[in-house]
């Protein structure tokens, strides 16, 4: 417990505590506006669409906002000192070694995937996926106001990715990961000698597949099958769904690829934590 207290009051972890308050607050604030819009059917600010002069009205707001933020920053800087540990020493590796807090969701992914996926491919796809959002979300509704009813799928996907896979993993990485990158609950002692027996097996052996080549084929088949779920759904539904027809095959393939890749993380987490699965595909070239 003392360890945990020391951890949450670490100066560099203060931003995470701030996030813990800010995110629920802003969720509440936007939820209220979205609900009003959805109940009345009219965007909640539709009546405020007339124009006002930037000077003085906007500039005044900016000025007040800047003063408040500078006050907060000033108090924060007077109260809490930036950390400075011992001089750097390449020979003394701390345990655990953690990246800065805003990268801890990525570091957390390293538990479940090899570095080339967790550290390179997935971050790359996050960037590509974010940039792609405006081009693949063709729903013209819900532009410029808070709503839930008019774009439930987009909101659900983004909130899952941002709030669960980014923010929650970041918090887990900061507060619950201890020596050896093992999970420690707040009340547990950070035992640097804690050994977690690793009895991880590959998915193929769970299915009783022994031969090496067969296992590779099986792994490829599972992954290929997973990604063809998308196109299969398309050809099954596109006749009857106007939405899918408007989206078109190319956009659909991009959406389904990104979506399935995002879901692969929680799926791998469940497989690992529930069934001790190490790899879905293990081959001489790459492991997934």
């Amino acid at each position: 417990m003392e360890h945990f207290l020391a951890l949450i009051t670490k100066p560099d972890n203060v931003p995470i505590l701030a996030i813990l308050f800010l995110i629920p607050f802003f969720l509440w604030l936007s939820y209220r506006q979205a609900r009003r819009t959805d109940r009345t059917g009219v965007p909640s600010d539709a009546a405020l669409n007339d124009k006002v002069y930037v000077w003085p009205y906007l500039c005044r707001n900016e000025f007040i906002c800047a003063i408040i933020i500078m006050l907060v920053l000033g108090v924060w800087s007077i109260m809490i000192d930036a950390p400075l540990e011992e001089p750097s020493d390449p020979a003394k590796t701390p345990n655990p070694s953690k990246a800065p807090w805003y990268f801890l969701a990525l570091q957390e992914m390293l538990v479940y995937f090899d570095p080339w996926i967790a550290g390179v491919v997935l971050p790359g796809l996050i960037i590509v996926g974010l940039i792609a959002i405006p081009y693949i979300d063709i729903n013209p509704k819900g532009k410029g106001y808070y709503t839930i009813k008019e774009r439930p799928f987009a909101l659900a996907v983004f909130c899952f990715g941002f709030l669960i896979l980014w923010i929650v993993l970041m918090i887990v990485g900061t507060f619950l990961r201890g020596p050896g990158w093992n999970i420690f609950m707040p009340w547990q002692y950070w035992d640097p000698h804690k050994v977690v027996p690793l009895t991880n097996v590959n998915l193929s052996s769970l299915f009783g597949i022994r031969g090496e080549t067969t296992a590779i084929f099986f792994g490829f088949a599972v992954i290929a099958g997973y990604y063809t779920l998308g196109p299969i759904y398309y050809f099954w539904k596109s006749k009857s769904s106007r939405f899918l027809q408007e989206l078109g095959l190319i956009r659909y393939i991009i959406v389904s690829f990104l979506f399935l890749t995002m879901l692969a993380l929680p799926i791998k987490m469940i497989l690992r934590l529930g069934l001790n699965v190490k790899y879905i595909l293990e081959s001489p070239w790459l492991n997934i």
Partner: protein
Amino acid sequence: MNEERKGLKEKITNSDIWKSIFRHGYEKTGRRYTLQVLQNVWLHLHPPRISRHALNFRFTWCMGGITFLMFLVTAVTGVLLMFYYRPTAEYAFADIQALEFDIPFGMLLRNMHRWAAHGMVISVMLHMFRVFLTGSYKKPREFNWAVGVILLLITFFLSFTGYLLPWDQLAYWAVTVGTNMARATPVLGHEGPFAPSDITQANDVRFALLAGTIVGPSTLLRFYILHCVAVPLVASVLMALHFWRVRKDGGISGPL
């Protein structure tokens, strides 16, 4: 007395010097409000008028503006810190200690720089979240969203390169862990899948980032230049583009 003051004020505001600096009067008219914005280099990225709902805190959360403010704070405090900091393995750590113990307000300066940087990371993430929740990335703002994503990366990268500079254990190992994954880059990292045999740890992408096979003095210099010169320059250019596009895409998004 009052008359006298008024006379004096008029004299000043009618003087050639005053008029050469301030191009408009202070009458309360729409024309003057417009000129105030258009003729001021600091304000002219604003449009003269915006829709009323965009003034509401509950719509924008002010997060884009706060991100920019945090950037300005780090720029100012950062320049001041540069007077006291030498990016070499011999001096870096000692210079940070000197800032803490010897230099007047050095600790406050360092604190403000660090917490503003962390604040910027928080606010840029919240800004992106707001823009998503209001659907503000939709036509015609698709490109500005893309510019924003690049700004998000730049914010992370600015913060990350700065993290190394104190040259203490925290800095050293956070950057070591953070750059280790580059080993595993497919094709270009020496431990990555499909790496050709002539990619070694002395010529892969991680080497390019660190200027060495481990985090060392040349990494410190490289990160320092990225942090203090290169990345802030790129960030400034992209922010100018970002603000310009907010305006050219029709101002803050809104219903209608």
